[in-house]
């Protein structure tokens, strides 16, 4: 598998920066009251979605979580339609019904963020079952946090996938916090990889660095595509901000936040790329300026689109 090509690395950087900047923008418009409900950002965790989605085809599936913007962007979601959804507009992917917490794009295999912790894991496993059943070569990724591994859904899904050798990669982004509590409240193990042992699922734990994740994910996706069954990858990632935007994190000391922010997967990758001369300072500036333009355009589009009408509420409940 090895290292990604130069072009691939530039694209990976661009997507990571896109996730970061999009979510920074989302925090801003959420604070303005333009986005309602709950908003969970993944700033500081951009490496994982990009590391894994770099190996996926459009036809492959990913099921995400409440903290799922990054995965959707990395899987290629159209930013305008995604933004429209987050603004609750009819032009959004889910007709304005879902907002952030259930963002989905069937055309790119994005099976949906989920408001129920752990619920996406068996659903993704079902997609892997379908892929095997239909003998497609599709691979499925289930993303979740370490907190979700307390749910029976996680254990039941892994058990089944291992028995049936399903083409799935379980991607756990262990950011150390589940809502307002540290991992010690949620699990007796130090690493989620230990959980996979009981299901005879090979598991690796990697740092929050995109190339490390890329390498581990490459092997896992290949294994899945070759019919060798599931793999679990734990990324030791960092949650920079509160559980949701607006959470003042009173339960967490400043030191812990500062440590998380010091591990900046985007900045580290940028430094790597500059040092290895894959990118020059001007290239980086250009990428970021282009992203700003793209994100602004998506926000303007979302702002201008109409909301669904009350009369449309009942549409589509049944076929």
């Amino acid at each position, binding site marked *: 598998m090895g290292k990604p090509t130069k072009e691939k690395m530039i694209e990976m950087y661009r997507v990571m920066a896109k996730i970061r900047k999009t979510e920074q923008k989302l925090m801003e418009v959420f604070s303005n009251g333009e986005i309602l409900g709950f908003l969970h950002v993944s700033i500081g965790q951009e490496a994982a979605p990009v590391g894994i989605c770099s190996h996926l085809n459009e036809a492959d599936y990913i099921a995400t979580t409440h903290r799922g913007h990054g995965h959707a962007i990395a899987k290629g979601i159209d930013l305008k339609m995604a933004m429209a959804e987050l603004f609750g507009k009819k032009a959004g992917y889910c007709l304005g*019904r879902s907002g952030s917490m259930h963002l989905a794009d069937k055309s790119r295999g994005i099976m949906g963020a*989920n408001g129920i912790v752990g619920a996406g894991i068996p659903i993704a496993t079902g997609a892997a079952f379908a892929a095997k059943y239909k003998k497609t070569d599709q691979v499925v990724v289930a993303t979740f946090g370490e907190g979700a591994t307390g749910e029976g859904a996680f254990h039941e899904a892994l058990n089944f996938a291992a028995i049936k050798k399903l083409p799935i990669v379980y991607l756990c982004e262990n950011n150390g916090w589940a809502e*307002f509590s540290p991992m010690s409240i949620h*699990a007796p193990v130090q690493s989620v990889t230990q959980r996979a042992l009981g299901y005879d699922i090979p598991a690796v734990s990697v740092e929050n660095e995109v190339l490390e994740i890329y390498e581990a994910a490459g092997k896992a996706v290949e294994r899945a595509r070759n019919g060798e069954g599931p793999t679990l990858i734990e990324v030791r990632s960092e949650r920079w901000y509160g559980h949701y935007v607006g959470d003042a994190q009173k339960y967490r000391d400043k030191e812990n936040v500062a440590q998380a922010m010091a591990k900046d997967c985007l900045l580290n990758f940028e430094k790597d790329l500059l040092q290895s001369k894959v990118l020059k300072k001007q290239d980086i500036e250009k990428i970021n300026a282009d992203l700003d333009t793209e994100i602004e355009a998506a926000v303007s589009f979302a702002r201008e689109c109409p*909301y669904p009408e009350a009369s449309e509420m009942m549409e589509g409940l049944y076929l």
Partner: protein
Amino acid sequence: MKDIRYIFAIKEAMEEEMDRDENVFLIGEDVGLAGGSFGASKGLYEKFGPERIVDTPISELGFTSLAAGAASCGLRPIVEIMFMDFVTCCMDSIVNQIAKMRYMFGNQYTVPIVIRMPEGGGLNAGPQHSQCLEAWFAHVPGLKVVMAANPYDVKGLLKSAIRDDNPIIFIENKTLHAMKGSIPEEEYLIPLGKADVKREGTDVTVVSASRLVNESIKAADALSKEGISVEVVDLRTIQPWDRETVFTSIAKTHRLVVAHEAVKQFGFGAEIAAAVAEEILDELDAPIMRVGAPFVPASYSLEKYYVPGAEDVKKAVLATMERSF
């Protein structure tokens, strides 16, 4: 008397009952160190420690049944489910186990457990964080279902629920958590199974629970200016519900509206309407009207059209006033 918010009235109820009985403990996600996702247990961890204020992994099915096991062996758990929507993850525990343990085992075991959870819309939180599922539980023999409309009620009802030897589904409403109200300084209890006439009237009876009680009172205030006198009956406990108070009110007004935030179809309003039709249909001068959400999931951007409120109650009252047999 003192002013208190609904969420702190919940805390006071739990704290007083924990002081009173060392077998009472609280268990749930982020109830301890964090003081509860909505702040209902703020300070209790510091006071009672981790043995009695138990933080759990995200494992609703597991910790609910675990609490039931503890209850059947002499403890009195209060289980906090963060959003009512998540109680769907513990339906086996509640429906097959907790509701049946006493009866199925020939009355040998009692399961004195209170499962608290907030329901309802109001946060634009979408389809998986806005549901009102009380009717599911009211439909299961063996459970009691309590719904509190204001700070005074929530404290008195919760204390009674904790002392009750039956399993109780105790339903709060997210938009009520910040509501302020007056409560006595001294201890008080509110009996389960008894409705409360929140506002007296002579023309129409509105039977309701939780947030819709307050909405019905608003509607009644508005309608009184139009010369219509509305009696608002708060069920407080929807299973078992207080037929006597409801029937007495209808015998006075001869018109009935039932109002809840849950979807209208198969809601608890349907049971009230059916019981009235079975037993005192001849008291009615007009068809019964029901207020409830449309039969569709709550959605992120259409919530304001979805969640029923005072305006809907008003319309239903006017509709029943226009009709007669």
